[in-house]
């Protein structure tokens, strides 16, 4: 009973965090599923978005504008990875790792802007002094601060983002991007500039992650250089959970909605295992194992199906030999 009570108590936080990470997962979905590229930039981009947003807000920029600029900063990171990949011939996964690594230093510099040391690992921002879009403090607040309640704020933001992304992927431009991910050879034969489509896809994806980073930093009241560590794996977990639940491989709209649902469920499961006694430091191990398991299941399923086919064929051959 006590367990149930504490689970229910944690639900608003799960929803708030899940909705924010849902945007991040959409970024991962765009590269991993639509573009068929594993982009590791995002681990750095999440912190980059958070750092840019907090720094600008602290320096008097309107928080919505700061969030928008954080999104553009994320797109810039995606552009860099895209150019590494398409203009320098670096494999996509390595291009992402390079940008991610570079962003670690950049994030330290961004957060240390104006300080004597010049670098700083965390940058706090208080919702008491700044009019943030949302804050974890108001996650249960349905009174005076309801318009800074993460759940209330994130629902319309998520709806708008999903609508825009869905529209984009239905346009001529977005269709070309989907074709690039689905079949590179075919896309080129149909006159699609696959290099530029890949760059655009990486930019949109990292833009989403930068946006999520900005919102996450406001949610937790600070940005830190570590906030994006393992983000790609959490994003993947959300993408995969969403796909399993909605059985929606291929349909963009289902995929995007699945990201948000998957992300909420991910945080719900995390709450359960935390309450069952798993330490916060073991979370990343837990997440990595879960994602590995879910990625392995389709592979094992395929192998099992092939084995069944083989044994059926060999049985038939035996029967034929006897006859």
């Amino acid at each position, binding site marked *: 009973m006590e367990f149930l009570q504490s689970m229910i108590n944690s639900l608003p936080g799960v929803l708030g965090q899940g909705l924010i990470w849902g945007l991040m997962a959409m970024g991962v979905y765009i590269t991993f599923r639509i573009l068929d590229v594993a982009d590791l930039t995002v681990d750095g981009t999440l912190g980059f978005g958070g750092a840019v947003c907090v720094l600008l807000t602290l320096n008097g920029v309107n928080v919505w504008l700061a969030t928008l600029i954080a999104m553009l900063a994320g797109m810039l990171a995606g552009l860099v990875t895209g150019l590494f990949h398409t203009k320098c011939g670096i494999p996509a996964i390595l291009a992402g790792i390079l940008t991610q690594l570079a962003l670690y230093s950049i994030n330290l510099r961004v957060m240390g802007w104006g300080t004597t040391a010049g670098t700083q690992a965390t940058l706090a921002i208080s919702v008491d002094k700044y009019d943030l879009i949302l804050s974890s403090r108001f996650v249960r607040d349905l009174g005076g601060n309801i318009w800074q309640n993460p759940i209330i704020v994130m629902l319309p933001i998520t709806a708008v983002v999903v609508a825009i992304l869905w529209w*984009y992927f239905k*346009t001529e431009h977005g269709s070309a991007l989907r*074709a690039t991910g689905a079949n590179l050879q075919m896309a080129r034969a*149909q006159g*699609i500039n696959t290099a530029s489509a890949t760059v655009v896809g990486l930019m949109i994806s990292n833009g989403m992650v930068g946006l999520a980073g900005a919102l996450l930093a406001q949610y937790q009241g600070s940005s830190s250089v570590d906030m994006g560590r393992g983000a790609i794996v959490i994003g993947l977990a959300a993408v995969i959970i969403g796909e399993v639940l909605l059985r929606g491989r291929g349909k963009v709209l289902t995929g995007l909605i699945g990201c948000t649902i998957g992300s909420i469920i991910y945080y719900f499961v995390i709450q359960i295992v935390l309450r069952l006694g798993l330490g916060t430091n073991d979370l990343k191990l837990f997440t990595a194992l879960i994602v590995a398991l879910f990625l392995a299941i389709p592979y094992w399923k395929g192998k099992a199906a092939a084995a069944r086919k083989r044994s059926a064929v060999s049985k038939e051959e035996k029967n034929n030999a006897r006859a």
Partner: protein
Amino acid sequence: MLELKNVSKTFNPGTINAKTALCGLDLTLNDGDFVTVIGGNGAGKSTMLNAIAGAFDIDGGSISIDGVDITRQSEHKRAAMIGRVFQDPMMGTAPTMTIEENLALAARRGRRRTLAWGIRKSERELYRARLAELGLGLEERMTSRAGLLSGGQRQALTLLMASLVKPKLLLLDEHTAALDPATAARVLELSDEIVSENHLTTLMVTHNMRDAIEHGNRLIMMNEGRIVLDISGEEKRRLTVDTLLAKFSRAAGEDLLTDRVLIGA
């Protein structure tokens, strides 16, 4: 129309795996030519088509279409002028996209892709009519994913996609080789229809000598990266498998038996 001048290409140059695939290749196609291309494995047939399509940079020589030099043009730019169907039925379509989405992509070949809606209502009617002409019932499955189609259906769809925007040049690279005989025959028939209806200049690579003889108005045979036989007009019409083999062994100066095996006659 299409002009290849002294085109050469060596893969993996300077290594133990170096392979000269094209060797001073010259070819001129006239407007409306339907040329079948035969030759043994490694003769350079597919390499020639890929060189024309721009899948890789050639080492030397030049390629032009209608007097425009496209030697250094990127693959997606050339696609504005070139329609292609590949040997592998998987290659020509986007499996996770629907049939109508695939067609809509093809309908925008050579055009700037904007933020306009990816497929318009009026297009659907056109696609339905064109799919019905294939006679495979695909017009009833326009919102099915292309990945669900059989190999033959995909090749038929890819043919339609290659000709939806009339290309200056159609490249068919053994596009029936992966199909069962009945389906291959149907796809070949469709190819003939589409080529003649649209008066398309076509290069068709095939492993089947009979197909090479029965289709098109001109036949070329390749060996070791260049063209060793070029037969057209009345001579092409009177061609038989045996005379073709005899001509080939004379031209290539090689043992007839191994050629027979290689060409699959």
